[in-house]
């Protein structure tokens, strides 16, 4: 997919995530906005998946280890045809299958149930080792938050994945620098992230989470690296593309009220209209 189409798709994912959180009056908009471009590139260019056969054995897998950003994942799955777009507004509703955190048993296209931080990436390593055992060449991606790196088992798994040479595993760290209680450097610093992964014997690439050329190059680097898992440290902006949410830790787990929603929706709609005009003109 070309970069303009990816931008359009990412914008639609952000709008779905915003709609979901607003409809539920709860959820996690900040981190959902920061991973929207990563999801667009994975689902619409990089990953071998089939919406009509979500359990296809040879598919590439994505584990959203930072499961609280389910609104963005549901947005991507809706755009990719795994779930109906109109279901998004049922997010967190008792009558809906779209749980507050991803549930692999309820949602087509969700490869692992996540929500408890640190666990998803370890399951992703399990999938990667299964591929090796079966001599299948699917790839496994895991998206982690930078605050999530404070969970000890992330580093248990960092040892594990390198020790077992899981070069079919790519971890993408959504490095927006913020967690619930504030700046990651102030709360409990996981910095320097790149040097930590290097010390754990990973292939490390730093990328811009909102620049498709940069992300694409990082993912290609991961595919070409043999014998080591890859960590992509994706520098991102929490709340990206919604002016009042950008770089605000307060938007980690709060839903916008009606007034704030109207402003945010207008900003995303305007951006989408501009992108589509560029495409058509």
């Amino acid at each position, binding site marked *: 997919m070309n970069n303009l189409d990816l931008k359009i798709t990412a914008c639609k994912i952000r709008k779905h995530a915003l709609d979901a959180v607003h409809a539920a009056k709860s959820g996690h908009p900040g981190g959902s906005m920061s991973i929207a471009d990563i999801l667009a590139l994975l689902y619409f260019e990089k990953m071998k998946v089939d919406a009509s056969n979500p359990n296809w*054995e040879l598919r590439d897998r994505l*584990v959203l280890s930072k499961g609280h950003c389910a609104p963005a994942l549901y947005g991507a799955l809706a755009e990719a045809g795994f779930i109906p777009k109109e279901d998004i507004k049922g997010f967190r509703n008792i009558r809906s299958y779209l749980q507050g955190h991803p*549930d*692999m*048993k309820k949602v087509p296209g969700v*490869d*692992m*149930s996540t*929500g*408890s931080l*640190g*666990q*998803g990436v*370890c*399951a*992703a*390593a*399990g*999938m*990667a*080792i*299964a*591929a090796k*055992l*079966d001599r299948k060449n699917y790839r496994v991606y895991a998206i982690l938050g930078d605050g999530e790196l404070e969970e*000890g*088992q992330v580093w*248990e*798994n960092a*040892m*594990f994945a390198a*020790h*077992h040479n899981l070069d079919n595993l790519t971890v993408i760290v959504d490095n927006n620098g913020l967690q619930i209680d504030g700046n990651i450097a102030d709360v409990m610093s996981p910095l320097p992230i790149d040097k930590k992964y290097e010390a754990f014997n990973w292939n490390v690439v730093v990328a811009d989470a909102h620049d498709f050329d940069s992300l694409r190059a990082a993912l290609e680097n991961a595919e070409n690296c043999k014998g080591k898992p890859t960590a992509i440290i994706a520098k991102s902006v929490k709340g990206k593309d919604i002016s009042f949410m950008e770089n605000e830790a307060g938007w980690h787990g709060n839903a916008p009220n009606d007034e704030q929603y109207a402003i945010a929706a207008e900003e995303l709609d305007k951006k989408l209209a501009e992108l589509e005009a560029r495409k058509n003109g």
Partner: protein
Amino acid sequence: MADKKATREAYGAALAEFGVDERIVVLDADLSKSTKTDVFKKKFPERFINAGIAEADMMCVAAGLASCGKIPFASSFAMFAAGRAFEQIRNSICYPHLNVKIGATHAGISVGEDGATHQCLEDIALMRSLPGMVILNPADDVEARLAVKAAIEHDGPCYLRFGRLAVDRIFDVDYKFEIGKGVEIKEGKDVTIIATGLMVGFALEAAKMLEEDGISARVVNMATIKPIDRDIIIKASKETGAIVTAEEHNIIGGLGSAVAEVLCESAPCVMKRIGTKDVFGRSGKPAELFEEYGLTPAVIAKSAKQAIYEKEN
């Protein structure tokens, strides 16, 4: 009853025996010599994964393997499997109901000299509280082997509890094992002893002691603690009117609690629970510890007499 073997030995041997099924992958957390998964490792090195001393990671790796069609056996001591990695088992294995088997060895006080930090007396309580979890606690090596086979055939999470200590063989080679079924291994009409794991052998000894006093004690082997066999418990209540449970576990949350729940709701009768009395263990030889914490045939027999007395008065 001549043969003496630890259920963990049977676990390792069973993994190696049934490991010809290529879906089976065995994980361990640096305890393969103690959990006996090294027996599998020698035979199928390519399907043995050492996770190192990192149980939380191991459980979630197992979940990922299961999501791709593997049948992973994640092995460690009961303390670190059920205890340390409880939340990983809950959220990454049981919540998505993935086909992970947890092989937990060194359960209970019979771990001995290592002391309280390694004597897990809470694992059954923890695992019972998880929706969809099956809990198997075999009494001897014959049953342990069959429990591994049944776990492989069962689709869903399964917690297998094994002991460190060599125990007498109770069952013949033609013994039939079925998940969810208790087995009456001795007939009796005055009282029923429902036992699990290593305590089954002690329950049989207690029944012999009672017989010498003219008391007819029924003995039920409850290898599956979840789902519990309601029918055999209700039948015992109606036919013998007095029940004693015996387990190498805290009396809170284990077999005794599971039996009490069934009795209270469906067939109340006099009941006594044998187990550790909400305390931690300590270092010592297993036989000394059984005495210290009241896990002996004599204590079971005494409780059975008390239960019969209360039933009749």
